[in-house]
């Protein structure tokens, strides 16, 4: 366009020079362009009149000089030389509409939705009168005040219209104009075009907004958004009990039905649910997001023995939400004691339920005073049954902690059993308990007293005497 304008000015400037050469004085010629006087230009006399010959470079040089030396006169010169372009007679501006197929079904759009919008242009002018048409699609998103151009320029040449209908289309396919929108609501489209004579916008060129079938002067769509969701079953922290330097991983999966990218923030909370730190990742919908504790340096030695919890906040830029608070991980304390060789022995090989059993554990406890060790046994009849507690003090030597007791009753007969020691400090395996299982079943024998024992004699005598006493009393009371 600039080049065209420059050519027009040059042509216009030549005209007054020609007029001046012919003796016609333009009004008001307050100044005349000075000759550069170089070898490429010259003056001649013809019929007593001085004729100045200018080549193109001189002319341009003079124009540039004039524009700087005397801008007011230069502007006046331009005004004199301006000749408005007059469209041909009977010329009518082309009709331009937005064609949006399936407009009813697609009236609601999301930020990621690829739009296919067309310009439908009808030019009733004869081909010799038609001019090129330049089109832009413009859009105004929710909360925006002005239209902005989207997609690239489309051009329709004079001969590119259908010979039958004098119409043609241009498309803008695969547009995602509101990808970065932070609001939902009304989205408006219009077409800006220029037909070499005038510039038009489809939203203002018609007296009334046009809408018929899938054709619009102004296309209005509803930009909507679906919030992302968390797959609660996928939320995990593994392992839930670990040392501070173990590879602890937080994992979760989020999905956005619109396919938006999801900003996921992991909030690490202390045991009072106060936030310690948070980290954010942007992930595609439906993919697992992983926060590796070692990568982010979430835990240190100072965290040994502490319990943590966590939650996620997540959003797609428009809607955000948070998960519930999940427990974990529990950072295992640093080992204070070393335990080994849990063992159990029955008083003899019969392994009766009424016998004593000797439970033992080797403990090296160099630091902890009053280390408490509890013994638990477990049978189907008495699961996790507490038996006894022993307390030991710190020592550099390995100590044998022994429980010699009768842990079972008759309901445990003919059953296997397990046992474990639970201690008040953490062992070398970051655990607070160690145990084992019995080598075999408890003897199925139920009655522990032999037939010839005093207990049996007492039992039978007690029954006989009771029966006799009943007989005597009843006979005296009812039979006499």
């Amino acid at each position, binding site marked *: 366009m600039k080049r065209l304008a420059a050519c027009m000015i040059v042509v216009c400037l030549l005209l007054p020079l020609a007029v001046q050469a012919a003796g016609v004085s333009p009004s008001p010629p307050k100044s005349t362009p000075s000759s550069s006087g170089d070898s490429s230009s010259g003056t001649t006399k013809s019929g007593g009149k001085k004729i100045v010959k200018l080549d193109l470079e001189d002319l341009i040089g003079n124009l540039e000089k004039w524009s700087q030396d005397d801008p007011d006169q230069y502007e006046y010169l331009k005004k004199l030389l301006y000749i408005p372009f007059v469209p041909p007679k009977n010329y009518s501006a082309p009709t331009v509409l937005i064609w949006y197929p399936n407009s009813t079904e697609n009236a609601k759009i999301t930020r990621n939705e690829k739009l296919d919008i067309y310009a439908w242009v009808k030019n009733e002018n004869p081909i010799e009168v038609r001019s090129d048409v330049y089109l832009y699609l413009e859009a105004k998103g929710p909360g925006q005040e002005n239209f902005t151009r989207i997609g690239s320029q489309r051009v329709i040449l004079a001969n590119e219209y259908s010979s039958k209908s004098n119409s043609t289309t241009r498309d803008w396919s695969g547009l995602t104009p509101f990808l970065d929108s932070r609001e939902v609501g009304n989205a408006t489209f219009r077409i800006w075009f220029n037909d070499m004579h005038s510039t038009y916008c489809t939203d203002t060129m018609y007296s009334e907004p046009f809408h018929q079938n899938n054709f619009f002067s102004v296309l209005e769509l509803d930009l909507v958004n679906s919030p992302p969701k968390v797959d609660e079953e996928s939320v995990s922290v593994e392992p839930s009990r670990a040392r501070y330097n173990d590879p602890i991983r937080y994992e979760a999966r989020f999905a956005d039905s619109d396919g938006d990218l999801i900003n996921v923030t992991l909030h690490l909370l202390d045991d009072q649910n106060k936030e310690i730190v948070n980290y954010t990742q942007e992930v595609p919908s439906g993919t697992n997001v992983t926060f590796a504790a070692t990568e982010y340096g979430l835990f240190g030695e100072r965290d040994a023995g502490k319990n943590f919890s966590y939650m996620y906040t997540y959003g797609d830029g428009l809607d955000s939400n948070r998960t519930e608070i999940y427990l974990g991980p529990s950072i295992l304390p640093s080992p204070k004691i070393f335990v080994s060789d849990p063992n159990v022995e029955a008083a003899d090989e019969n392994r009766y339920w009424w016998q004593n059993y000797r439970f033992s554990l080797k403990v090296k406890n160099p630091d902890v005073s009053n280390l408490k060790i509890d013994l638990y046994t477990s049978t189907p009849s008495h699961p996790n049954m507490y038996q006894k507690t022993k307390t030991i003090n710190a020592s550099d030597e390995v100590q044998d902690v022994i429980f010699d007791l009768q842990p079972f009753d008759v309901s445990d007969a003919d059953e296997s059993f397990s046992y474990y020691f639970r201690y008040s400090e953490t062992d070398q395996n970051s655990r607070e308990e160690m145990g084992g299982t019995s080598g075999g079943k408890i003897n199925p024998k139920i009655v522990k007293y032999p037939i010839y024992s005093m207990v049996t004699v007492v*039992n039978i005598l007690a029954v006989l005497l*009771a029966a006799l006493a009943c*007989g005597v009393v009843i006979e005296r009371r009812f039979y006499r």
Partner: protein
Amino acid sequence: MMRLELLLLGLILAILGLAMVIHKTCLDRIYHRVRKTTDGNFEMEELKKHLELPQGSNFNTMMLLSWLLFFVGMAYLFFQTPAIFQNWNYFQLPRIASAWYGMIIFGWGVMGLTFIPAVVIPEIYKYYIIHGTIKKMMTFLAPLLLTISILLSLYLGAIYPRTDDMIWYCGYFALLAPLILLLSPVFLSIKGGVR
């Protein structure tokens, strides 16, 4: 094995039931005979009162003792270990079963549950003339055999889960024999022993 033991239990109950039927039949027969001969208007209770014979305090006491022991012996033999009734046995109460006084509780419990039949059944003896020899056998032999049955049952409980069929059958015989002996006045009444 289990089915046979149940049959043997059924035999004991059948003998008991048969004795009760015979006893009632005898009384009814006498009642009807007396009513025919006297044309009188009296009740069964009145007849029973007239038919009563004193059997002696010692005899009555021993019969009460014997019947109490009979029910205790039957419970010890059939309901002590899970060998016969898996879910209905004394060992289902493991805390009592493993206590030193467990068999006392069990025996007293059985006496409490069978108190009424053990007290009511001996009343039938006062309607029968019981021969002296039988009376002596009933008085001395029945409690002795029942005590033996109880001891054998205790032995079976002490060795459980081992079993000893011979001991069990001995225990059963020691239970069945006194039962028949205790009910012998009723059975002998068929020959006209009722007064």
